[in-house]
């Protein structure tokens, strides 16, 4: 982390309805590295990505990307900033009415005036990078989950973004496509000099590729550091998460009244 961070999150507060999701999150995402944001399900990791991408506005605090404060930008400037970002959605979110080729070509067609031949070359290069050049004529409905995510990755890098956001890239993947994705994320980051943010709760895979890790829980950053330092962290909450222990400071049980009383309480209600 020699130079200035690419993304800075400062004092972020966000609530949805009456539920407070973030209460004072601070992060500095280093340029050109893979930063992982981890935490148990339901801690608002995807929400954090949406806040960084400017799709949601925080109640307090700010998000700065390369010096530009995301939530202060006009709609037009925000869309211009988003051209420098790619995002890989959990579902892939491919456009279901366009073929694989057209999906990857979409950002190029709408943001550039490149001639068709060049668009074709670029699309084939991106598809080659994710190993799906041969699948260019297929429709999204014909792809497996892993393939759809790789196509979405090719689309996310079509405009050579500086920042790429991965939302749970490993969820629901078989071991082979999981391995493929892990390698792809690592390779793309090195080859293209991207800044990557990976949101995930797949500890093993994420820790193998991340340069720096933030663990969030209860709306705050619980711990941050390199994967090695987190592995030996003594904080019981961190160690429970990193080593995947079922019960600990993060309880296995959803809050409820006393089990014994609950069982013995008679009556017709639930």
């Amino acid at each position: 982390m020699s130079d200035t961070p690419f993304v800075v999150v400062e004092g972020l507060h966000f609530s949805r309805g009456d539920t407070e999701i973030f209460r004072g999150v601070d992060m500095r995402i280093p340029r050109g590295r893979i930063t992982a944001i981890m935490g148990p399900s339901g801690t608002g990791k995807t929400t954090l990505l949406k806040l960084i991408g400017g799709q949601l506005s925080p109640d307090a605090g700010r998000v700065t990307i390369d010096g530009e404060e995301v939530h202060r930008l006009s709609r037009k400037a925000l869309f211009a900033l988003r051209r420098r970002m790619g995002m890989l959605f959990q579902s892939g979110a491919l456009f279901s009415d366009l073929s694989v080729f057209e999906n990857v070509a979409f950002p190029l067609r709408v943001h550039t005036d490149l001639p068709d031949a060049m668009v074709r070359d670029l699309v084939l290069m991106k598809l080659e990078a994710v190993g799906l050049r041969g699948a260019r004529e297929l429709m999204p409905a014909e792809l497996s989950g892993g393939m759809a995510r790789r196509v979405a990755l090719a689309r996310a890098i079509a405009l050579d973004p500086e920042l790429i956001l991965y939302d749970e890239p490993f969820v629901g993947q078989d071991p082979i496509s999981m391995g493929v994705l892990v390698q792809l994320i690592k390779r793309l980051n090195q080859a293209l000099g991207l800044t990557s943010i990976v949101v995930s709760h797949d500890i093993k895979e994420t820790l193998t590729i991340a340069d720096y890790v933030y663990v969030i829980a209860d709306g705050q950053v619980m711990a941050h550091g390199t994967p090695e330092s987190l592995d030996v962290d003594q904080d019981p909450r961190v160690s429970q998460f990193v080593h995947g222990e079922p019960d600990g400071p993060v309880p296995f049980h959803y809050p409820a009244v006393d089990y014994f009383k609950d069982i013995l309480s008679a009556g017709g209600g639930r």
Partner: protein
Amino acid sequence: MIARVMRLGRRGCDLLEALGRAGIFVGQSAVGVPSREGWALWLRQMHFVGVLSLAIVLVSGLFIGMVLSLQGYTILVDFGAEQALGQMVALSLLRELAPVVAALLFAGRAGSALTAEIGLMKATEQLTSMEMIGVDPLRRVVAPRLWAGFVSLPLLTIGFSVVGIYGGYLVGVEWLGVFEGSYWGNMQASVAFIGDVGNGMVKSLVFAVVVTWIAVFQGYDLVPTSEGISRATTRTVVYSSLAVLGLDFVLTAVMFGGLS
């Protein structure tokens, strides 16, 4: 009591907020000069929204014209006034039935499909991913559909009227034996182009705006779950139908009721 008043107030605020959202939504979508690609997207939606609704609208138009002619004949013939059949069929269709029935059919056939399509795009994060690519889904997804609806319903209404009048001719002249010259002649003499055809088209245009607006807004604003999509689709049809019938009364009162 106070709680009830508060609930009522909150409902009112929610309603106003939804109306405001819908207003901003349609404003942001409908403005802007379409690009060359915008025209292509619009044409494609014209096909989905307009051309594919053609069959149901034309067949319904034919039957309504035929029924109208049959019913009209049985009454008019009692007064020896069956010569006025053409006039009756044409005026009923142009002023009232074509705009209203075409709009109702359009809401059921095209409106519900628009809601479901946009809703599914929202549920599968396609709209979000479009935003993240830096493309405004209001311009790219909503605007072509909105304009396709605005243009296609008035055209469908013209088709409805034409086929309906022909249906009336089939039953009245070909089957029941009304004199062909008086069917067309009385129609020509009594139908005013601006007053009847024009007002009918104004109605149809208003319905087109309202129905398409409701349909795309319901799709864009829904809760992205299977239940949310089903509810929004139902709401599209229910709200559109009520809006069309309610507005029809208001427009008729202003146009033909001597209130203007």
